[in-house]
């Protein structure tokens, strides 16, 4: 054998072997290299793949780094995608998902209260889809938060990266309109 392989090379090999996002720390342990150095390599690689217009992209999300096929190629890949078709979520599921993303950790009853309708069935669906999970913190198993899988699919490192909720508020005109229609003196 010639020289030992470079950090870059081993990082690439790990990315190819992994079947889920790998934290930079874990790669650092394997390589016996500080996490910051691994992260620099990962960012460099992500840039390289993009610049060279490879068929894959390297992305970081909450759980770690992972190789994904480039979305541009999606139409050609349908045949090779095994099983994992994500069924579309209903409006109700999306609403609850948004509530959990922005208000989590949050209990079932708080969710139901916000929506004005019992939401246990929807929460169960989201749990089964793996988008929501019981809060990991001590003594909070009755509270729910979004899962790493959700963050991975959204390409987010944490819920803090979500756009501010105020971006989604109805504009003042819409609110006034609602108010006018509700007013007893209308």
């Amino acid at each position, binding site marked *: 054998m010639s020289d030992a392989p470079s950090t870059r090379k081993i990082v690439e090999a790990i990315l190819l*072997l992994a*079947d*889920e996002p790998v934290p930079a720390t874990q790669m650092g342990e394997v390589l016996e290299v500080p996490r910051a150095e691994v992260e620099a390599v990962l960012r460099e690689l992500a840039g390289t793949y993009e610049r060279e217009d490879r068929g894959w992209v390297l992305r970081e999300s909450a759980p770690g780094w992972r190789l994904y096929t480039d979305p541009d190629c999606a139409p050609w890949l349908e045949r090779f995608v095994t099983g994992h078709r994500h069924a579309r979520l209903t409006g109700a599921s999306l*609403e609850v*998902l948004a509530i959990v993303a922005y208000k989590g950790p949050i209990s079932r009853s708080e969710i*139901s209260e*916000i929506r004005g*309708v019992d939401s246990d069935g929807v929460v169960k669906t989201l749990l089964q889809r793996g988008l929501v999970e019981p809060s990991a913190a001590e003594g909070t198993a009755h509270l729910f938060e979004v899962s790493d899988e959700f963050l991975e*699919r959204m390409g987010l490192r944490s819920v803090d990266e979500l756009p501010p909720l105020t971006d989604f508020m109805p504009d003042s005109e819409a609110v006034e309109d609602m108010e006018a229609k509700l007013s007893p003196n209308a």
Partner: protein
Amino acid sequence: MAYEVKLEVFEGPIDLLLHLITRQRVDIYDVSLARITEEYLAAISDLDGADLETATGFLVVAATLLELKSARLLPGRGGDEEEAHLLEERDLLLARLVECSTFREAGAWLARGLEAGSAAHGRTAGLEERFVDLAPKVVLKTTPERLAALAATALAPRPEPEVDVSHLAPIRATVRDAILEVAGLLRGRGEPTGFRELCSGAPERIDVVVRFLALLELFKAGAVDLVQVDRFGDIRATWTGDADAEDVLAEADEYVIDLREAGR
């Protein structure tokens, strides 16, 4: 009476109300209050047969509409305090509508993100043959009991929705009862009786509403004459004897509301 409210597109009362209001399909004050009330009562008597979640959703939105409409129909009742209370309620409802609308928009944004995310497929090929035996055994931190609980939950039918009964608990008024009650009161008197007097024993606003509805039903059937001298004055009702309460009840039974139409 057929209970035919189908709210498939709506998720609960707030959602329905938001839909009705924002799509401008319905001025909530144009929704026939009588029909809503009848439906409301029919729904209560028919609850065990209906999809509980749907029924509850309808009941709560009906209650909300009734309250708001009753406030408008009965100006001045209860004075400033009542008015202030009503405004407060309206503001709370508005706040909930805004919140609901906000989360719905946020949900739509998440849907786009998830959709975009699903166009990128993560590498899943997994371990190459030569590494398979090295992989540590998966930790199986579970017990037969825990598995049983998981299986029972997974195999059980979807959880029954819990019903928010807070809106329903104090409401025991029905238009049918009110028709009989109002008719009974008026029949015995030869002279006009004020609506306020008819409502004197009514503990809740909903009681006032159903009595008002009952009066309208009786009027429609010709059993009573109504006189209102000035716009915000008391309504005075006189028994005519041209129809009796039973006929009115028979008419009232034919109400059917179809909110699908309202939501379209």
